[in-house]
C-alpha cells in the first residue's frame, strides 16, 4: 500500500466565503449550518444546527451562504501552488488534496521535508486567510484515510504529522468512529451513515475497537458499508475491494471549435461529456470512482486533475466537478491565455455498476424517489419556502405540529421528526383529542353573544358570564349555539409583562352541525379553528 500525503485546509467553506479572521462564522445551507469557524465552535455552534439555534448560541455570528462553486474556485490557487511539488493531485472535495508520496519524497529527500514544503506552500498561498480557520494540516501515512486523519491532527497541532511505515493502524486506533462518516457517505446503499451512527450505540467508539472485530461480523451486520468500515478502520487497502483500473479506450474527449472561453459553454459541454462517459461505462456494466479531467487551451496550456468519490460518480457529479475545475482555472492567477479547445474525461478506476437498487424492505421505494424528484422540481418552480412538510413542535394550541420547508429536513429523519420525541412532556391543559381539521394561521374575529345580546365574558376564576347563544364569525350571520364547552384557560409567559397572553378557549357547536374552536383574549373573540 502506497504512502499518501494529504493536505487539509480546515473549515474550507468558511475560508472560501471570505469570513473575517478570528470572527465566529458559519456557512448555512437550507437553514442549517454546514461549516463553522473555530471561534464559532468555541461559542457552541455545531454542524447541523438550525439558523436560529446557531444565532441563539452566538448572537454576533457571521452568516454565510453555501456555494460549492465558490469553494472549488477558491481552492484552485492552492492546487496550483501544490503543482510545484507534484503533478498528480487528487481531490475528493474542495479543501482536501491528496497525492502520492513516492515521487516528491525522492526529490526532496524525506517525507518530513515534503510535508514541511507542502505546508509552507499552502500557507503562503492562503496568506492572511490562515487566521480564519487555522493553518493547513499535512499528514503522511499508509493509505488515504490514515493520511487524512493525520492531516486533521496536524491542522490542530500546527505542525505536519508523519506516521511511520506500518504504524498507520495503530495511529488510527484511538480516533472516534464518526471520522468514518465522511468516507461512507457516498456509498450508494442506504445504510452508509446509519452504520456510523449505530456503531457507538453498540459500544464501538474508536476505530481500534472496530478494527478488532472480525471483518465477516461487520459485513454480516451492515453489509458492504460494514466491510468498508472495517477496511478503513484497520488502515487497510484504500480502494474498494472490487475496484480495478479502467481500460484505456473508455476515455472520452471533445474538441471545441471555436474555443470556449465562457464557463457556461464549458459547463454545457462538460454535461454532455459526462453523460457520454456514463453511457460508455454502464454499457460495459461499470461505474467509475476516480476520473481525471484534463483541459487544454488553444496555446497549449494544460490542466489536469484527478477527482475521486467514495461511491460511484454519477454523471451529474462528474459534470459538476468538471465545471468546478474549469471555473477555478479560468479565474485563478494561472488562467489560460486563450480559449479551451480540448476537454478529456479519463476514468481512472472503475467498479462494477450496481445500478440503484430500489429497497425491498423499507428504504427508498419508487414512490419515495418520485416524490423526492417532484419536491425538487416544485422547489425550483415556487421557491424553497413554498414546499412544506410537517414537523413536531409541541404546545397547548390547537396544532402541536408546524410546517417547515422540505429542503431543510433530512428525508431519512422525517419519521422521527413528525412524532413527539420520546420523553417529551404531556402538556397538561392542552385541548383534548380529537384535534380540529382546519386551523387558521391568523385567527378570524368573531362575536359570541349570550341570550340577552351581551358579549360573553370569562371571569378571573374561569367561569363564563352567561351561556353563549349566538355566534357570528367574521361579520357573518348569527348562528344559534346548540352546544358549548369550556373555558380552557391559558396564561402564557406570565413572568414576562410584555409578552404575557391570557386566553380562554371554547368549543362551540352551532345549529348547522359545525363545531368551532373560539378564543377570548382581552375582551375580544377570535375563531382559531374549525372541526371540519
Amino acid at each position: 500500500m502506497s504512502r499518501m500525503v494529504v493536505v487539509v485546509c480546515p473549515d474550507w467553506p468558511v475560508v472560501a466565503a471570505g469570513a473575517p479572521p478570528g470572527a465566529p462564522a458559519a456557512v448555512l445551507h437550507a437553514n442549517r449550518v454546514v461549516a463553522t469557524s473555530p471561534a464559532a465552535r468555541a461559542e457552541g455552534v455545531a454542524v447541523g444546527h438550525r439558523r436560529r439555534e446557531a444565532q441563539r448560541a452566538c448572537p454576533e455570528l457571521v452568516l454565510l451562504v453555501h456555494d460549492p462553486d465558490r469553494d472549488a474556485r477558491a481552492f484552485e490557487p492552492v492546487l496550483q501552488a501544490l503543482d510545484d511539488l507534484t503533478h498528480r493531485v487528487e481531490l475528493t472535495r474542495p479543501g482536501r488534496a491528496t497525492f502520492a508520496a513516492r515521487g516528491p519524497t525522492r526529490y526532496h529527500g524525506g517525507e518530513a521535508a515534503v510535508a514541511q514544503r507542502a505546508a509552507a506552500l499552502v500557507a503562503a498561498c492562503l496568506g492572511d486567510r490562515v487566521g480564519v480557520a487555522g493553518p493547513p494540516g499535512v499528514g503522511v501515512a499508509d493509505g488515504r484515510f490514515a493520511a487524512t486523519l493525520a492531516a486533521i491532527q496536524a491542522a490542530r497541532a500546527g505542525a505536519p504529522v508523519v506516521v511511520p511505515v506500518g504504524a498507520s493502524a495503530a495511529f488510527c486506533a484511538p480516533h472516534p468512529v464518526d471520522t468514518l462518516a465522511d468516507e461512507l457517505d457516498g456509498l450508494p446503499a442506504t445504510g452508509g451513515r446509519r452504520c456510523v451512527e449505530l456503531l457507538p450505540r453498540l459500544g464501538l467508539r474508536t476505530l481500534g475497537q472496530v478494527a478488532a472485530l472480525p471483518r465477516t461480523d461487520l459485513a454480516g451486520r451492515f453489509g458492504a458499508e460494514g466491510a468498508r468500515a472495517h477496511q478503513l478502520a484497520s488502515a487497510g487497502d484504500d480502494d474498494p475491494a472490487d475496484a480495478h483500473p479502467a481500460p484505456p479506450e473508455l476515455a472520452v474527449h471533445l474538441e471545441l471549435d471555436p474555443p470556449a472561453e465562457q464557463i457556461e459553454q464549458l459547463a454545457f459541454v462538460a454535461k454532455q461529456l459526462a453523460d457520454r462517459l456514463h453511457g460508455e461505462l454502464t454499457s460495459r456494466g461499470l461505474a467509475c470512482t476516480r476520473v481525471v479531467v484534463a483541459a487544454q487551451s488553444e496555446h497549449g496550456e494544460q490542466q489536469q486533475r484527478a477527482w475521486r468519490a467514495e461511491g460511484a460518480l454519477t454523471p451529474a457529479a462528474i459534470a459538476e466537478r468538471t465545471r468546478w475545475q474549469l471555473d477555478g482555472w479560468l479565474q485563478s492567477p494561472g488562467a489560460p491565455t486563450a480559449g479551451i479547445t480540448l476537454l478529456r474525461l479519463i476514468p481512472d478506476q472503475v467498479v462494477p455498476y450496481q445500478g440503484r437498487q430500489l429497497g425491498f424492505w423499507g428504504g427508498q421505494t419508487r414512490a419515495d424517489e418520485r416524490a423526492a424528484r417532484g419536491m425538487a422540481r416544485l422547489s425550483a418552480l415556487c421557491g424553497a419556502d413554498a414546499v412544506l412538510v410537517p414537523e413536531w413542535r409541541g404546545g397547548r394550541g390547537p396544532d402541536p405540529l408546524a410546517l417547515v420547508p422540505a429542503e431543510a429536513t433530512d428525508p431519512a429523519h422525517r419519521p422521527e421528526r413528525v412524532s413527539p420525541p420520546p420523553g417529551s412532556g404531556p402538556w397538561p391543559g392542552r385541548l383534548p383529542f380529537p384535534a380540529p381539521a382546519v386551523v387558521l394561521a391568523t385567527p378570524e374575529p368573531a362575536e359570541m353573544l349570550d341570550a340577552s345580546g351581551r358579549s360573553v365574558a370569562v371571569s378571573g376564576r374561569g367561569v363564563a358570564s352567561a351561556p353563549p347563544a349566538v355566534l357570528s364569525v367574521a361579520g357573518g350571520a348569527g348562528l344559534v349555539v346548540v352546544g358549548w364547552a369550556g373555558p380552557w384557560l391559558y396564561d402564557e409567559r406570565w413572568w414576562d409583562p410584555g409578552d404575557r397572553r391570557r386566553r380562554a378557549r371554547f368549543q362551540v357547536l352551532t345549529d348547522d352541525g359545525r363545531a368551532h374552536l373560539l378564543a377570548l383574549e382581552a375582551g375580544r373573540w377570535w375563531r382559531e379553528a374549525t372541526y371540519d
Partner: protein
Amino acid sequence: MAVTSIARRGDPAALTRATHLAQPVAMAGERTLAVLPALAPLFPDGGLRRGNVLTVGGTGGATSLALALTVAAAEEGSWVAGMGLASLGLAAAAGLGVPLERLVLVRDPGSTGRNEVLATLLDSFDIVLVGAGGRGAERTTGAHRRLQAKGRERSSVLVAVGGAGGFEPDLRLRAEAARWDGLEPGAGHLQGRRVVVEASGRRAAMRPRRTLLWLPAADGTVQSAVAPVDATSIPPAERLCVTYPSPTPISDTQTDAPAAEAAAALAG
C-alpha cells in the same frame, strides 16, 4: 423477436422499453389505491381508482373526509400532496392516521403558476389534494381538462376539497348531517362526530351509495358507525332505526346485509 436484436446492440434504455412493451396489461388490483374499510362501501371498485378525480364537499367535515381518503394508501407507501390547504390541521391528520412523513404541502402560487404546480404534483404524487379556496364554482376550462388527462395518464388521484374548482369529477362525496357527541351545555368536550357520507358519480358510481361514519371517532380515527347486523341480539324493530335531519333514509348498504345473510343461510 426485436428484443434479442436490441440486447445485442447493448443499449440498456432500449431494452427497458422493450420489456415495457412485452409486459402484460396492468392487473385490476394495481389500478386502485386502498381505502379504509369504513370507507370501502362508498366506492364501486372498493378503493380509489387511479386516474380519477374526486370532489369532497358538504358541511359535515369535508377536510376530514378528504384526509381520511388518503390514510390507507399513504400507509402502504403512496405519497400525498396538498395545494391550497394552508389551514390544514396537522394534528387532526395525524389522528386520522395519515403518516405525516409522506405528506407534502405546497403553498398556492396564485392564479399564475397554479396549473404548472398542479401538473408537477400529478406527475410525482399518487394522491393530490387541492383546496378550493373560494374558486369552488369556477368554470371548467381547457386547462382543467388537460390536468385531468394528465392525472389519468400518470395514474394519480386528484381530490378537490370543498368545491369542484372547475374539475369534472368521477365521484362526488358529500358529508352531511353531522352530529357531535360528548358536548353538554358548558361541560364535556367534543368527542366524536357521526356523519352520513353520500357518494355519487359517473358510470359505475351512478347509483348513490351512503354510509354512516364516525369522522372522527373519540380516538381520532375513522370508524364505520353502521353497527354490524346481528340477527339474534337486537329486537327487529330497533335494529335499523337511525334518525337524521335529512329526509332520505339509509339505503343499499344496510338493506343489502340481511338479504345477503338470508341467502347465505339458504345456501349453507
